[in-house]
């Protein structure tokens, strides 16, 4: 395998590991902040100890999230050198804002939250707990603004003087920040974190009920966890619906791959699993109109007319225009003749929106791995529905105090903990594998985004990171299990 493949595998592995730890951070942050708020309002020590218990698990998980996060940030530079120059003008700003606004907030108030119980006032501590979660959420917003721009590069123009995409006005910055893809991604990611937190809390609490330990603590935690998880699930569905519409509009190939749709059309059917389809459903989901046209893989390869009546060129035509753009850029950068320069600039501007296609070898290169995206999409949706059902049933029974004796349900809640992680990973596989071969949609394919490294160097670091992250994961799970077995300090009622 070459350096491009190893760079992709390394980045995918780092991102996948990072996303094992981040959603629990986002979800538990909300759960424990709600619990501590109840403690401050009710002045009941039970809620303090309940919040402290979940904070302990939060802290174990938080450390590994930080460790994987720093590698992810710097891999943009180490492994994707061209990419980091090409996007630096746009991507750097959200990253810097993330650092200044979010990271310091998280780091400072995490320390207060964890060590400050006997050092700061009750209210200051509560504010610190909320700010830790808010810091993590702000952090996610800015990184998803950057990710959203990669999926739908709005608000920037290509500057041939600097050979990169640049923002040029306040309106452009606003377009980047309010990019609909970024907004739906943000809500989808954050609220999926709430689902993870909710399912985790409910699952662990059910284990205590199974063991007939800490019943009061477990019921209270199930109530808070299931509410957070249910609210998160509905928000995930709403933002997921928006993501589907955005994929149809800005990344139709991703949607076609997720559906395994070779030939599209109006009243397109949604495939539940191969052989079982709902007529017209895909058109409704993708365009909110049963008569909406959804292009399939072949339509995109060969060109089609979209729902606004625009003629979308075939990939071969886009490749030809992309190559013209690259030739024009090369001439523009090398000539000193003003008229030749002006001519090259004109040719570049005419074709720049397809510049990335100029780097492709053949039209089929724009097709992502269909099988992977198709099944990941189904795992995501299927597991998401199952988890919502679990939270609704267990939350309702806990509310009515009728969980006792429902042994199979409690076992199911524990089984749901790994399932929520599979669900989250499947979602990111749809989002990121589905947009291949692009690091920036239409502008920069992965084969041009790389650093000048040998495959051996990246292969070595891949295995080193894999070994370290796996070791950390195993240790974290062992420590979490130890802490869970030990249990909270609430009275064993």
């Amino acid at each position: 395998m070459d350096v491009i493949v190893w760079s992709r595998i390394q980045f995918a592995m780092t991102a996948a590991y990072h996303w094992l730890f981040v959603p629990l951070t986002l979800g538990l942050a909300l759960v424990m902040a709600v619990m501590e708020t109840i403690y401050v309002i009710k002045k009941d020590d039970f809620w303090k100890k309940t919040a402290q218990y979940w904070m302990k698990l939060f802290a174990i998980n938080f450390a590994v999230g930080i460790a994987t996060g720093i590698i992810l940030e710097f891999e943009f530079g180490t492994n994707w050198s061209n990419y980091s120059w090409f996007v630096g003008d746009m991507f750097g700003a959200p990253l810097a804002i993330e650092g200044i606004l979010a990271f310091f907030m998280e780091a400072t108030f995490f320390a207060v939250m964890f060590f400050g119980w006997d050092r700061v006032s009750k209210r200051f501590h509560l504010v610190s707990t909320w700010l830790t979660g808010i810091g993590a959420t702000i952090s996610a917003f800015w990184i998803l603004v950057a990710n959203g721009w990669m999926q739908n590069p709005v608000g920037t123009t290509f500057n041939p003087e600097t050979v990169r995409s640049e923002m040029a006005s306040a309106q452009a910055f606003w377009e980047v920040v309010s990019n609909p893809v970024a907004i739906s991604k943000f809500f989808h990611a954050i609220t999926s974190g709430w689902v993870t937190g909710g399912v985790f809390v409910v699952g662990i609490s059910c284990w205590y009920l199974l063991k007939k330990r800490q019943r009061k603590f477990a019921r209270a935690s199930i109530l808070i966890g299931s509410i957070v998880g249910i609210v998160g699930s509905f928000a995930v569905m709403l933002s997921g619906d928006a993501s589907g519409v955005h994929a149809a509009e800005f990344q139709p190939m991703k949607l076609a791959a997720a559906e395994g749709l070779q030939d599209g059309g109006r009243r397109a059917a949604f495939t539940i699993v191969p052989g079982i389809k709902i007529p017209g459903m895909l058109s409704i989901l993708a365009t909110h109109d049963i008569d909406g046209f959804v292009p399939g893989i072949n339509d995109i390869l060969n060109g089609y007319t979209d729902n606004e009546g625009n003629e979308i060129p075939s990939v071969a035509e886009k490749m030809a225009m992309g190559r013209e753009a690259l030739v024009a850029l090369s001439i523009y950068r090398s000539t000193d003749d003003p008229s030749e320069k002006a001519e090259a600039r004109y040719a570049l501007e005419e074709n720049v929106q397809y510049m990335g296609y100029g780097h492709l070898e053949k039209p089929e290169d724009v097709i992502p791995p269909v099988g992977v995206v198709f099944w990941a999409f189904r795992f995501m949706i299927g597991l998401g529905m199952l988890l919502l059902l679990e939270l609704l049933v267990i939350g309702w029974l806990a509310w009515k105090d009728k969980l006792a004796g429902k042994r199979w349900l409690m076992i199911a809640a524990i089984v749901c903990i790994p399932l929520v992680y599979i669900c989250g990973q499947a979602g990111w596989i749809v989002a990121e594998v589905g947009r291949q071969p692009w690091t920036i949609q239409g502008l920069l394919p992965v084969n041009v985004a790389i650093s000048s490294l040998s495959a051996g160097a990246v292969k070595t670091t891949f295995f080193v990171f894999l070994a370290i992250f796996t070791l950390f994961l195993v240790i974290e799970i062992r420590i979490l299990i130890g802490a869970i077995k030990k249990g909270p300090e609430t009275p064993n009622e």
Partner: protein
Amino acid sequence: MSDIFLQNYWWFLIALLGGLLVFLMFVQGANLHLGNRTLSDLQKRMILNSTGRKWELTFTTLVTFGGAFFASFPLFYSTSFGGAYWVWVLILLSFVFQAVSYEFQNKKENLIGSKAFRVFLMINAILAPLLIGTAVGTFFTGSDFTVNKVAITDPAAPVISTWGNGWHGLEALVNYHALLLGCSLMFLTSILGALYILNNVDDNAIQAQMRRTVKMSLVPFLAFFLSWLLILLVRPGFAADEDGIISMEKFKYLHNFLQMPAVLVMFLLGVLLVLWGIFKGAFQQSRSGIWPAGIGTVLVVMAVFFIAGYNGTAYYPSCTDLQSSLTIRNSSSSQFTLQVMFWVSLLIPFVVAYIAYAWHQMDRKKITPEEIADTKHKY
């Protein structure tokens, strides 16, 4: 706001973040004592819990330093990180181990034993300042890379910034001038760490040990730092003219000091403050040496960044192709992006204020053996 003002402003902020990062690396310096055989396990635990409440600030400053470099000078980010691959990977690995070592080391389920995690913290304590200092040292010695923006139009070799050798940055470790800065930084963080523990931990034996450490680190620190400085002042530097053409200039960095007297004053003041902090910690009974030494460190590091980048100087020079050298003019983000970030950066004083407030609240109670015994949440 002009492009030049914004580029200078962002180089100032990079310098400030660099200064704060070096100051906050007292965490690394203090962690060196986790292997000190003269200290008991409880005393090591006190040190661990003292740095354990600050390590995230150091870590966050490193991340923000990287993010700010990416945002304001992306060509440096793409050239140095993609090129000096192994150096950055080693630095990151040492920080990755640090990130989990606090939380994991005293948990019985940690699989590899608490000693292993203490070793990880000590490796980070040595490697982080040594490698970061050496990497910054190459700002004055140059590195083996070329930058060719037209390359992106060539499907066969599209990478804009390419490194000239297979060592990918490790070659800096045999560049004696760059390495001198790395060694200086390692001993400086050791001094800062000892001064910090002196201030933060109430234990007579630990305090006596910290004063000894300051004295023992002083001589190698001065030897390495003064050697680095002397060579810097007499070596040729990478000058950029108004058209961005790079050429070698004799005594360039000496000229930079002399042509920017404010930077010279800042540098000398910083050195004096560091020495005063050391004197207070090593030779007086004071526990507040960390403050002058810390402020002095920030000033010195900022001055070093200023002479690397201001006054028509290439801050990331290429030995292979002089014209590929990076200056704050040719490697920056666009004027608009720098301007957006300028407005965001005005929040920095607010961020510093709440960190200082939270820090003050947390440090009102010093770390004592009783506190370690009584506190539920500890490392």
